[in-house]
């Protein structure tokens, strides 16, 4: 920051950590106060756009910078044909494996099931997989079968899409039998950290847990389902978005390009542990030779960006309720998802009224 300020003395740069940023932004920006730009996850773009809080910036992005970010990342910050943010970092779930229990990570689901079966012994408190299954984290199975939760382009919810149902069925038939029968995040996450499970599906926010617990672990891409395709998790992209209050969008975007390009983005990544999305940064030895970040960089290539629209809100909520109901066994997969889809469609219809 200081470097940039010294080179551009006309700019006054100030950074603040603000709790509950989206809510405060809704009050501040219409009142003409608040920041020039913000950093937030890309899935709020739709809401921010709808409330007229952020502005499209595609006209201000330099052609050189445009080429430094891969298209699948640009897709995450693009809505209705406009670019709404400068992508900084990306994350998704991937496969963690205990190196003392598993010699090589499984490349296919068949191999993964074999490993899970070998270690699964609930009577002894051991399980095949540590997997805090929720709407977000099970998306990899749904996407593998071509299913989806909410399609921004077609404006359609897909909780009862054939692919979605197949994905959930696959999860319940092939994976759930090797899991602890409990969806509690803490209960699931503890299994891998306590060496009671050889494998885990979890994301970067969790990586410090097994490390601190002394687990000798490695990261691998999620396996492929033979004849179907790779598991494709949801991707979240942290992006800088320019608010409506910004007095000089050109200068702001120029600064944001600087902060998200190497070497700055790599320096930041070393401190924060986040995966930068700039192609130049990914080529830096500090990222390329990092056993975790290099795998994560491969994983996000196979990932699907989360929906950016407010219509995803009901899908998260109803999906959560449906997953818990199906898990509890009070409803079948098809009934649970059909019902959730109906509720979501109703919610969305009323949303627009």
């Amino acid at each position, binding site marked *: 920051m200081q470097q940039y300020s010294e080179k551009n003395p006309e700019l006054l740069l100030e950074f603040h950590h603000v709790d509950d940023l989206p809510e405060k932004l809704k009050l501040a920006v*219409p009142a003409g106060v608040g920041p020039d730009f913000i950093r937030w996850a890309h899935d709020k773009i739709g809401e921010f756009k709808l409330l*007229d809080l952020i502005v499209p910036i595609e006209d201000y992005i330099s052609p050189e910078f445009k080429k430094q970010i891969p298209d699948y990342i640009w897709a995450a910050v693009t809505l209705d044909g406009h670019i709404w943010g400068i992508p900084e970092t990306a994350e998704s779930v991937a496969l963690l494996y205990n190196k003392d229990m598993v010699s090589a990570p499984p490349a296919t689901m068949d191999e993964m099931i074999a490993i899970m079966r070998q270690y699964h012994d609930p009577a002894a408190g051991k399980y095949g997989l540590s997997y805090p299954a929720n709407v977000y984290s099970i998306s990899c199975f749904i996407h593998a079968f071509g299913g989806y939760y909410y399609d921004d382009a077609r404006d359609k919810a897909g909780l009862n899409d054939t692919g979605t149902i197949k994905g959930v069925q696959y999860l319940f038939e092939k994976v759930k039998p090797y899991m602890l029968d409990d969806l509690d995040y*803490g209960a699931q996450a503890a299994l891998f950290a306590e060496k009671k499970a050889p494998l885990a599906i979890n994301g970067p926010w969790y990586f410090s847990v097994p490390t601190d617990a002394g687990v000798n672990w490695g990261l691998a891409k999620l396996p492929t389902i033979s004849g179907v395709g790779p598991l494709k998790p949801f991707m979240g992209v942290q992006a800088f978005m320019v608010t409506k209050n910004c007095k000089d969008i050109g200068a702001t975007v120029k600064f944001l390009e600087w902060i998200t390009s190497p070497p700055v983005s790599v320096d930041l990544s070393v401190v924060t542990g986040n995966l930068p999305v700039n192609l130049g940064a990914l080529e830096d030895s500090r990222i390329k030779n990092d056993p975790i970040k290099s795998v994560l960089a491969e994983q996000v290539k196979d990932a699907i960006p989360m929906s950016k629209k*407010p219509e995803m809100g009901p899908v998260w909520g109803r999906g959560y309720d449906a997953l*818990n109901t199906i898990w*509890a066994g009070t409803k079948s997969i098809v009934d649970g998802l059909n019902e959730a889809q109906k509720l979501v469609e109703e*919610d969305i219809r009323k*949303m627009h009224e």
Partner: protein
Amino acid sequence: MAARTPSSFLINRKTLLILILPSLTFYSIFFIYPIIMNVALAFTNRSMYHFYEYDFVGLANFVEMLSSADFYTVMGRTFFWVVCTVFLQIGCGLFFALFFTSPHLKGRGIYRGLMLLPWAFPNVVMILVWRGMFNPSFGVINVLFGTKINWYNSPEYAFLMTQVINIWLAYPFLMLLLTGAIQSIPTELSELAEMFGCSSLQKLRYITFPLVKPILSYGTLLTSGTAFMQFPVIWLLTRGGPGNATDIIMTWAYKEAFYSQRFGYHAAIAIFASLISLIFALFAIKRGGVLEGIK
């Protein structure tokens, strides 16, 4: 000459007004203003899609609520939840209050202090601790009773669990309230009763109960109000699940209105729930002599 009340003897009306002005201002800003805004919101279609520009829609939100089939299921469950909560919370509060005011119990001050502990911790933290204790795989409750119940997967057990925790969170308040009432009963009455050969049960029936009754109805009023509008206990434990088996009015309202960010509709449900609560209160005041307890 008219008798002077103590307040008018010491200060005049104007001074009185100035003295209550600061708290009145805060009360108006943080309590009365939001209520008025909420009532106004209930008659609009304000939502994520109508955030800055929204329309007056009259009673549409209330009509929508009343024409939802789920609403009646949820209301029925909410009444059941309130009745269970009131009986059990009052029962526990009264039991412990009687127990810890017993003259035969030594060190009752210490016990009473310990019994008040649930009240001393933030509710949300305690609910999350309880959630861990009821965890089907490593929770202490299953270990303690040697059971293998999945408390979150069965509608009946989930309801039972939320009740247990809800009672635990609220009984200290009622215990404290009733302890005060029991202790204010003159000991002479009890001694007199003993002289006439009354048993403990008779003393309870003819002396203690009639004298704590006003406080008891006051407690009932407060408990039913909070039980009716309960949100965190259900939301943090089961989120109304499995399915919607433990949904009560406020958690249902949240799902209906906030998954889709419809603020006007949510305000309407909240106001309706408040009105029902108010009717409870008025009924209790009229029939139960609640205000005697406050006077």
